[in-house]
């Protein structure tokens, strides 16, 4: 049986997926990224080799790197941009999806997906980290909470306290001020989720979303954000049956399966 690998070295997390010949996931992992992309990739790949019962890269027919460290993945046959890989990852998971918003550690991308899983068009935020995983990390830190707890906080809110600052630094100080004023933390959190959801609006439009979209990347696990997007943007967020954080690595592995077939 042939195996095919995808390794998504992101700014915050590194993800790896191994597919078998049928396109089924044989192994997957998500680890915190190290300062050196090569090391992150190696650790992630070692984990999936072990899980899949493979000796190492020699047991893979094809390996593709993606993410910011895509050109640093040891033994990779080639690298493909994370934009293409997220589109393909979502396509193999939910072929009906045509619009994707990928919220990663330091950027947000809107991707329009063609019927064959290729990219029709895309948009990407600029250098500012507003509305990205870094932003949520900073906000959770302001609340002295872990990220998973923070992401559910806003679901309890009865009202929304708008957050005006989009800059991560200034938003953090705005949140600290609001907490200091004694405002309910869940309502502040709802304001944060609302602000990010609105920021996603531009990406959703550029991705051609009309009534639904899929969220990928680590922030796709943020329940509060999903709720805010559905409420504010009136767009149905399609639940992916595979971990949305793995979509880049999954897409890379699928490309590897297509390119490495017959090797």
């Amino acid at each position: 049986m042939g195996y095919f690998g995808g390794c998504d070295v992101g700014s915050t997390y590194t993800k790896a997926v191994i597919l078998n010949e049928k396109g089924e996931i044989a192994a997957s992992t998500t680890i915190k990224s190290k300062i050196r992309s090569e090391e992150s990739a190696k650790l992630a790949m070692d984990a999936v080799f072990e899980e899949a019962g493979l000796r190492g890269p020699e047991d893979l027919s094809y390996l593709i790197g993606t993410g910011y460290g895509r050109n640093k993945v040891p033994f990779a046959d080639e690298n493909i941009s994370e934009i293409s890989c997220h589109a393909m990852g979502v396509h193999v998971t939910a072929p009906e999806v045509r619009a994707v918003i990928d919220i990663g550690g330091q950027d947000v991308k809107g991707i329009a997906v063609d019927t064959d899983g290729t990219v029709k068009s895309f948009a990407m935020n600029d250098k500012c980290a507003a509305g990205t995983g870094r932003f949520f990390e900073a906000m959770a830190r302001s609340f002295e909470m872990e990220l998973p707890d923070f992401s559910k906080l806003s679901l309890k809110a009865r009202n929304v306290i708008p957050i005006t600052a989009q800059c991560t630094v200034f938003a953090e100080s705005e949140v600290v001020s609001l907490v200091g004023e004694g405002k309910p933390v869940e309502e502040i959190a709802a304001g944060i989720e609302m602000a990010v959801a609105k920021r996603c609006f531009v990406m959703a439009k550029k991705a051609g979303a009309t009534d639904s979209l899929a969220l990928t990347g680590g922030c796709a696990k943020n329940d509060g954000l999903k709720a805010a997007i559905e409420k504010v943007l009136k767009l149905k967020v399609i639940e992916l049956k595979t971990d949305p954080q793995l979509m880049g690595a999954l897409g890379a592995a699928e490309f590897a399966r297509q390119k490495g077939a017959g090797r």
Partner: protein
Amino acid sequence: MRDLKHLQYFEDLLQNANNDLVKKARADGKVCAAFVCENTPEPLFNLGNCFGVRLFAPNTGSMDVATYYMTSFLCETTRALLERAIEGGFNFADCVIAPDGCTMINRCIENMELLKAVESGSDRFFYEHMELPFKADENGVRLMEVQCRNHILTPLSEVYGIDVSDRAIRDAVREHNEICDLVNRIGDLRKDRRPRITGYEYAVLVLSTYVCPKYLLKDRLSETLEELKEREPDDREARARLVVTGSEMDDPEFIRLIEECGAFVCADRYCFGSLPGRKRIAMNEDEDALTQVCRHYTYECQCPRQMNMEKFYGRKAYINEIAKEYLADGVIYDQVKFCDPWAYERLSGSTALREEYGYPVLSVDRPYNIRSSSGQMRTRVQAFIESIEIKKLREGKAGTGGKA
């Protein structure tokens, strides 16, 4: 491909506006006229004992000082130029001649003047601000003629005794055309499916012709052309052939970044590019030289500052023409951050090229110094190239240039 013999030499010239050839020309006793816009007739800065240098600010870092004077809402090119002037990077210039190509370059040069930022040491140093036509017609030609006479020829003649005669203009055009011919013969090599030159190498050569005295460049350009004729191209074709069009772009690193993602930049329609910046100027003996030069710059202009509808649509048609001529698969519309004319043109142009002409288009705004966001830009460009490549593979075709 084997490295070009003089590539390092040309690259070194681009590390500093006050490069070795500028120093050499000044040591030769020549007067340096600095200019800042593609729309000013370049040969008029190369008259007699004068040589023109288009200002740029390589290796720009922080622009905080210039931002203080100009605000963060003005384009990064103009802020980078002001910053470099304040740093003393343009002190080689004997004059700075600026058009109202855009209001931002106006503000930039006004601030240079107010701050006395360029200190050449010459008590004859001067600034000139000139007007340029907004329309390509004969009124525009006459306006440019008057402006060039009042703000380039007269001051150069009166202050530095430069020969501004009709004969001197014809000589300068002849030299300009020699450079254009060399550049174009090199540029034509980009039409090959397996080109003998990369887009990056070409961008380096072209940029050097804007920022160096021309008479000192000819020999190396000629040698490079001869070398290229014998150069063995790479075996593989690029994953995609791209036209890069847009605003001011004086950083070949952007072209290198695009090509590192697997593309070949086959045509360059941006300020500091060769299309149409290095189109030779046709001259006849019947009409005076200044009028002919001004007519060339008025009608050939592809800058969005020209607002008549013929030009508006013509700019998109021009991109289509060069995309076909250079066998492009797609177009990158590039705009330096906060460039007003190109913000509008980028939107209308990318829409027209995509929807009316059928090209894949990537529309990006970028910082003046591309290194400050190269990671994100690389992701954008690579994804764009991948989408073109996949569609090409599926359609089983090479670059043919749109549907129109």
